[in-house]
């Protein structure tokens, strides 16, 4: 409870886009965040349904000059876990980094930040993405969500396209989300190409290794694409992940989805996925199909209704269906 009060107390009124006189390049302090509530009716436990607050995030974004920025993000979260038991809520430092924009082609970050990987890896999934549940390849966090280290990112823009890259050296995932790789050294990068806001494709390559145990490693390759049709009314998206890990056979996983924005504020999203699932089925293959209805309400509210069909390769894990309800608010 104290953690909740602390987080709410820190959410002071946002001071956005302060401009005085004709000079736009001033110190800016921007506070934002989001919170959500949701729950699932689950076939495995039909007696139980409880709405629960899953995330409360607060970002403090300080812009000292057009080139120098600091972002500090605190999180109080209890992710919707398909495995059990569910973890307790903890107030954590999610991100804290200093950013220097040297030029559009080279921006430097030092501190703890999200691993630049894939289309939308772990970036506030519940609020910013189309579904309530993350895909299996994201839920398992085969590639650590956070990195503590140095990142260089940049953008090469052309008349009708842009190329974006990110390179990082990480000294582990300090958030503790990915225990097996928590203390490991990692490096890698991501490159993506956007053509005319219609088509986007990219690739991420990462390698993590334990410095003490040189035979403990993970090599990850992720390929992704997004295609917009009819000026954002219909959108197709896919991500494919290939893994080489010490002690495990090579494996891959994917998700593919089709989203139809049938009005400006509502959509239907259909997602198919298949991947090795360490959380739910101890590494056996998990296939899922999800249908989501999403509605964007005024004042930055969103609601989602989601039906999920889960199937497993091995019969020792029972197939099950779920119906989820979610609401989120950004401030």
């Amino acid at each position, binding site marked *: 409870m104290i953690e909740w009060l602390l987080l709410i107390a820190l959410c002071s009124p946002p001071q956005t886009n302060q401009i005085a006189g004709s000079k*736009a390049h001033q110190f800016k302090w921007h506070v934002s965040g989001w919170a959500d509530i949701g729950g699932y009716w689950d076939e495995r436990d039909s007696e139980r349904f409880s709405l629960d607050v899953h995330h409360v995030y607060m*970002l403090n974004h300080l812009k000292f000059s057009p080139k120098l920025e600091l972002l500090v993000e605190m999180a109080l979260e209890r992710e919707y876990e398909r495995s059990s038991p569910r973890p307790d809520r903890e107030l954590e430092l999610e991100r804290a980094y200093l950013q220097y924009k040297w030029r559009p082609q080279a921006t430097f970050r030092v501190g703890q930040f999200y691993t630049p990987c894939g289309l939308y890896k772990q970036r506030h999934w519940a609020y910013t993405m189309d579904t309530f549940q993350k895909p299996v390849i994201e839920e398992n966090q085969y590639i650590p969500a956070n990195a503590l280290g140095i990142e260089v990112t940049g953008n090469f*823009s052309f008349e009708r396209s842009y190329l974006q890259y990110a390179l990082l050296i990480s000294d582990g995932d300090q958030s503790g989300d990915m225990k097996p790789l928590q203390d490991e050294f990692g490096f890698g990068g991501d490159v993506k190409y956007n053509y005319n*806001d219609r088509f986007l494709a990219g690739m991420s390559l990462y390698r993590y290794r334990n410095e003490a145990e040189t035979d403990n490693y993970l090599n990850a390759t992720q390929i992704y694409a997004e295609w917009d049709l*009819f000026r954002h009314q219909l959108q197709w998206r896919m991500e494919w992940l290939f893994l080489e890990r010490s002690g495990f056979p090579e494996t891959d996983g994917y998700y593919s989805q089709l989203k139809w924005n049938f009005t400006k504020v509502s959509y239907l999203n259909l997602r198919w996925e298949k991947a090795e699932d360490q959380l739910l089925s101890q590494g056996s293959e998990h296939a899922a199909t999800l249908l989501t209805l999403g509605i964007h309400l005024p004042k930055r509210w969103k609601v989602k209704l989601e039906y999920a069909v889960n199937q497993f390769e091995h019969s020792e894990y029972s197939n099950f269906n779920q119906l989820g309800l979610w609401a989120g608010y950004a401030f």
Partner: protein
Amino acid sequence: MPFNLVLIFWFLTPMVESSPTSFIIVASEKSALDSITEFQLRNLYLGKLESIKSNPCLPAGVAKRLPENQQFITWLFGSSFNWGNYWAEQSVRGMRHEPIPLGSFALLLAFLERNHDYVGYLPSSLKDELKNFDVKSIKINR
């Protein structure tokens, strides 16, 4: 995609009239920018692009309470684009700011006159106002 599926989407997706208002893009006379593509303009207003041909370039606009604000969004992004949702998502991701909002077009033109790195917009019907300020029209390459 099968042709009948395309037809279903086409008929079921609500059709909204295109915006009747057209806009011109404006910047300070001292700006190095003379032309911009529609792709660059969209990405500029989405905060994804901060320079064009190595020249810093930032977006400015008018306040949300003015109807021209929404008309410009519809003109640039189409009627199905949800501007409010886009910025709500950017806000929780961090590191993004909406285009600077000015209270009127007169204030916007005065702001652009003094801030050479910014571009703004003006309804075509107000094009004559350009002669009262030290700003120029930027050509849009479709």
